[in-house]
């Protein structure tokens, strides 16, 4: 397993968390 596959939509990640039983890791980063 290598590169991280980042989601871009928080709500989509939360929906996936509901079915996959994994928590969400949300990174707020400065884009400019």
């Amino acid at each position, binding site marked *: 397993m290598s590169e991280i596959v980042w989601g871009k939509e928080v709500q989509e990640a939360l929906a996936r968390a509901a079915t996959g039983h994994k928590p969400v890791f949300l990174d*707020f980063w400065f884009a400019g």
Partner: protein
Amino acid sequence: MNTGPYSEKKVQDYLQEEFIPVKSECFWDKRSEAMKQFGVSWTPTLLVLDATGREHHRVVGFVPSDDFLAHLKLGKAKVLFDRFRFAEAIKEFTALIEEHPTAGVAPEAIFFLGVAEYWNSHDPKGLRRALDTLVARFPQSEWTRRAAPYGQIPL
């Protein structure tokens, strides 16, 4: 392309295996809806959330690579703890402390390991053991001061 701590294989593997990773862009001139929703006012801010959007762990500011993986593990352990899955939380806190003994979050993990042990067994000795470990290893930590009342518990 993953940079900083995200460029490390151990971080990549753990993050991908244990979490659903998502990034949210922030800009100088306008606070995003996601920033408002989660009360974010600085970057980087890293959150561990459960499926309901409830926050279980927050990190504000840069985290050195050595500490980053420990934060991920603490976040996972705190989700279990907050859900009253204490036996599983104990395993995670214990592993974190063993694998990252000098990480910045080690004192917090020791504290919560003691609390999880108490909740799991209803035996307060876990709280006292947490205090004794903190005193021995992190005498200056605030977590040691927070655990001070447990000194009343006999072993």
